[in-house]
């Protein structure tokens, strides 16, 4: 039977199916040809626009990878990442603090087996390599490294008739007294000693390293270098040389306080001497007069590294490694694209040998009075924190928060330095026993 209605319906159905197939093919073919993998990358909120720009540069170089960038405020970063990991929230790459590496190593991806990792590891500065290695495995590529030095106000120093920044702790006190007596500063010394975030204890570690020692010995007793440093520091507060109002200032706030021109020195991370901080011509009253000097005595110091890592639960590890290499090492050209830009945009120093030789990097450092070779030498010689304290112990972050509180009590004169040292030891022993 040739029913014309049926024929028409059949033709319509055929045309509809053909149209549907063509449309589906139109959707599927391009997406197969330009298949993109989206990876989730988590960062804290330092210079977000710069990070977004880096991500764009990476995506342009790797059209097959799209980056979903999530920014978390620094203050909540560690806790939120830990919660996300506990809740199995999917993410691929992330920023990692070196002081939580011991805690996070259980779920971070070891990078040693990745293509090119061994070569990169060999080129890293000892500080970067040590800070990112836990139990012999590499867990990160360097975002930046920094060391602790004295940022001093050259104008104030010269006004007081002082020839050079201090080379010993006794000289440091004498210089501060001279400046105070001359009425150049009410409290010449400012320190970042807020009990949360990095602050007091990292400065303490730098002081202990400068005396050539460790803070805690193998039995977690405070060493003689540790106690000597604590007593000297406490005396500067007792004698009115250090600003008591600065006791709740974090590193950023103490750097801003130094920028007012009311202080002689600030022992802190090297990047705070940069053009974005003490030498910011628009915001700092000490711009052009703020220089970096090494720590006193043996002039040894500690440093730290922030890094990029991969979540071991990631299903896009290859792509995560690609962005890690771009951000934490070289672009496809073999050039350290992002590490160099961080020097220029944030005075954040590098994790690989020889970056300072780049003309743009050297020019950027010289623009705020830094000597590139000198900075490179300091970075190369800076000790990793774990050479001074049990920095990579799982319990370190908890101990540090406690120790920072005790330090504040000592500096504010609420506790004797000896009692503070005893509390540091007891807490370290208690936590070490719990996490045995």
């Amino acid at each position, binding site marked *: 039977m040739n029913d014309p209605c049926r024929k028409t319906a059949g033709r319509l159905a055929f045309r509809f199916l053909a149209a549907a197939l063509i449309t589906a093919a139109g959707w599927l073919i391009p997406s197969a040809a330009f298949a993109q993998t989206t990876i989730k990358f988590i960062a804290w909120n330092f210079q977000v626009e710069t990070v977004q720009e880096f991500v764009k540069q990476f995506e342009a170089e790797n059209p097959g990878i799209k980056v979903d960038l999530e920014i978390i405020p620094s203050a909540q970063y560690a806790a939120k990442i830990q919660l996300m990991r506990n809740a199995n929230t999917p993410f691929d790459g992330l920023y990692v603090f070196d002081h939580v590496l011991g*805690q996070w190593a*259980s779920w971070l991806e070891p990078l040693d087996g990745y293509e090119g990792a061994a070569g990169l590891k060999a080129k890293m500065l000892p500080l970067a390599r040590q800070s990112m290695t836990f139990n012999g495995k590499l867990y990160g590529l360097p975002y930046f490294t920094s060391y602790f030095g004295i940022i001093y106000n050259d104008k104030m120093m010269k006004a007081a008739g002082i020839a050079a920044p201090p080379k010993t702790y006794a000289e440091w006190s004498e210089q501060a007294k001279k400046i105070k007596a001359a009425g150049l500063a009410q409290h010449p010394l400012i320190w970042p000693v807020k009990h949360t975030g990095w602050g007091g204890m990292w400065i303490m570690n730098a002081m202990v390293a400068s005396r050539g020692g460790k803070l805690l010995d193998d039995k977690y007793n405070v060493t003689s270098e540790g106690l000597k440093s604590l007593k000297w520091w406490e005396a500067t507060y007792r004698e009115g040389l250090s600003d008591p*109002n600065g006791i709740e200032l974090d590193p950023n706030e103490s750097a801003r306080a130094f920028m007012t021109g009311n202080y002689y020195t600030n022992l802190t991370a090297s990047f705070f001497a940069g053009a974005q901080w003490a030498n910011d011509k628009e915001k700092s009253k000490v711009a052009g007069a703020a220089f970096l000097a090494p720590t006193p005595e043996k002039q040894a110091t500690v440093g730290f590294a922030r890094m990029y890592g991969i979540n071991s639960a990631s299903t896009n590890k290859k792509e995560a490694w690609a962005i890690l290499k771009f951000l934490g090492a070289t672009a496809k050209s073999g050039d350290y694209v992002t590490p160099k830009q961080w020097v220029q945009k944030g005075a954040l120093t590098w994790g690989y040998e020889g970056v300072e030789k780049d003309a743009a990097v050297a020019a950027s450092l010289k623009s705020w009075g830094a000597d590139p070779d000198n900075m490179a030498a300091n970075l190369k010689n800076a000790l990793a924190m774990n050479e001074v304290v049990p920095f990579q112990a*799982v319990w370190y972050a*908890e101990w540090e928060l406690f120790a920072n509180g005790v330090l504040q009590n000592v500096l*504010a004169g609420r506790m004797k330095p000896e009692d503070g040292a005893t509390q540091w030891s007891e807490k370290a022993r208690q936590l070490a026993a719990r996490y045995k």
Partner: protein
Amino acid sequence: MTPSALRRSDFLLRFLNAPAILLVIAFSIAPIVYVFYLSFQDLRIGMGASGFAGLDNYRFVLEDASVIKAFSNTFYFAGLSVLLATLIGLGIALLLHSDIPGAGWLVSAVVLPWAIPEIVNALMWQWIYNPTYGALNGILYSLGLIAEYRAWLSSPLSAMHAVIFAYAWKLVPFAVIILYAGLTAIPTEYYEAAEIDGAGDFAQFRYITLPLLAPPLGVVVLFCMVWSMRAFDIVYLLTRGGPGDGTMVLSYFVFGKAFEFGDVGAGAAVACLLALMTFALTALYMRALRNSAGTR
């Protein structure tokens, strides 16, 4: 109503209540039970294997001087916050009740802090207490009450009182609303009779207002106490427990222990102790209220 109709109505009531009951189980009871379970687990992030820990977590936290300090700070913080909020709240409620012109407008103004989110409240006080440009320093300095700007959050004692004041400021509107409602419920005849008997203002307050205001006062103290015991936002944003451990309260301690340092078992143990303490205080207070109601 027939038995079958009664059964149908009973079923309908249960059916209609079921969603609410499920929500309470899912978001209140189940988490409490789970935290209680965690407090007996050896669960430390970064330590690999975990298992049953018995009372180890409780032993560990009770031997820890930091926990003891956090307990004493919590009691001090809660006690003083409640006292301050109740006294100020009572004062304002009495003022509003005293027929002053514009009382209605004042009620709205007093309630305003209640509408401000906790985080905004904490950020506002962060600005007020700022050592270099804070409003408190500005006002006290311009009045000649301080010779130089002070860092209000840099010593444990002043930091604790600064945090308490900021938190009490948030509690006051609640106290005012409840106490003002309580005051309006007291019959005016009592005061008229007392006046005829020659009772002065203080005697009227002591023998009429205060006894009749006891139940709403109880509600204010109870709620404010429970809220203060678990105050977190204000401490987190203003002091983060510092300086030293000067403002370390239990809720912030639990957060740090469990979420920042990954000692979930110990954090859960402290949380359970805090919950137990709050339950005990509430029960004691309810009992005292019932007893006082019985004697009247």
